[in-house]
């Protein structure tokens, strides 16, 4: 009986810690999300970046694509177009800077 009680307590503690870890993981932004926000929050400053900085941001966007593609359907539908928009702005500004530089 004593062993059974100990086993039950251990299982209970284990389950508690598991659910706690899951909750913590749910609240905290995932790594891809942090990177996504770090990159895409810079679109409005794009005009002030150098071509090299813009190129780096485009590469960072490209690196995010496979990570977002692994997500569930709804998050893919929300974040992939959002990432495309964000990458698009950087590419657009980069092209515009290259265009004005070549004149």
């Amino acid at each position: 009986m004593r062993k059974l009680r100990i086993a039950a307590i251990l299982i209970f503690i284990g389950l508690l810690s598991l659910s706690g870890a899951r909750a913590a993981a749910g609240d905290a932004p995932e790594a891809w999300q942090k990177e996504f926000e770090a990159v895409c929050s810079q679109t409005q400053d794009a005009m002030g970046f150098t071509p090299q900085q813009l190129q780096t941001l485009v590469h960072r966007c490209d690196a995010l694509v496979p990570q977002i593609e692994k997500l569930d359907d709804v998050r893919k539908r929300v974040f992939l177009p959002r990432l495309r928009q964000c990458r698009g702005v950087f590419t657009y500004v980069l092209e515009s800077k290259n265009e004005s530089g070549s004149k």
Partner: protein
Amino acid sequence: LRNFVVENDVATAMPCVMVALKCLQFTQFLLWRWAMMQKIRAAIALMLAFAAPLCAQSGPKRRPLPYQYGRVILNNYTTDKTWVAPVVFDHWRHRAKFTCRLCHVDIGFMMKAGGTGIRAADNMSGYYCGACHGGKALFDGNGKALNDGKPVFAACSNSMTENDRLRCERCHSQGISDKSDADFLRFAQPLPKERFGNGLDWQQAEEQGMIHPVDIVKGISMAKKPMALPKEKEQLLTAKVVTMPNIIFSHQKHTVWNGCESCHPDPFASVKKGELSYTMSSIFQGKFCGTCHTSVAFPLTNCQRCHSTPVGP
């Protein structure tokens, strides 16, 4: 006598000939008319044959009433088996409170009909409508409470009672309730007026501080600095027709509502001057400026809003 008879015969025969001639003429006229009618009928039939598919394609065209301008009906997954009616979304209700950028960039609503494919499950997971309509209070980028601090009604839920039905019908309202008319009149009453679209000058309303469209909502938008508006104030675009006033385009005015992502690279993709050919025909088809100015922003019938430079001698 013979002469008389002949003359008399001719005299008596003349009316008969005349009548015959008249009859012939009348018959000819009838035949001509019949042929004409046939041609007209054929022309009408041809016109109908061509017009029918055109009408079927575009639907009956009627200028929307001010409160209906910018209305979107979302009917993605509503079937006869589901009891909910299609969603009626009036752009003006949200435009009065939020920028276009917030919904079309941060939340991810596509600018093309049916492009987003919203489902109730998405709303329940906190995406699309559910991003704001989650039954919680919202705060702007500076931490100021929105909606007078009241929680925003939840968009969709799995469990519902009969009382929830009223909440559902706030959006799923097609054919059920339409209070837009009265709501719009109340909302529009103090705002500057325009001739077309919603009948409101949204830009002036924003500039005069009569409306304060929120661009950042905490927990939805990414944390970032307030946007620096483009330095260049206005850009002159030359109209193709000589007598047509040139266009004054303001990056500043557009950026307040749209940010950068709403316009670049789509629908204005090229950076090379003169590479994109803007024609009124393409714009009327919903390309370039027509992306917004055929459906939500002031419509293309309001020529002077863009073609606004004085025409010189």
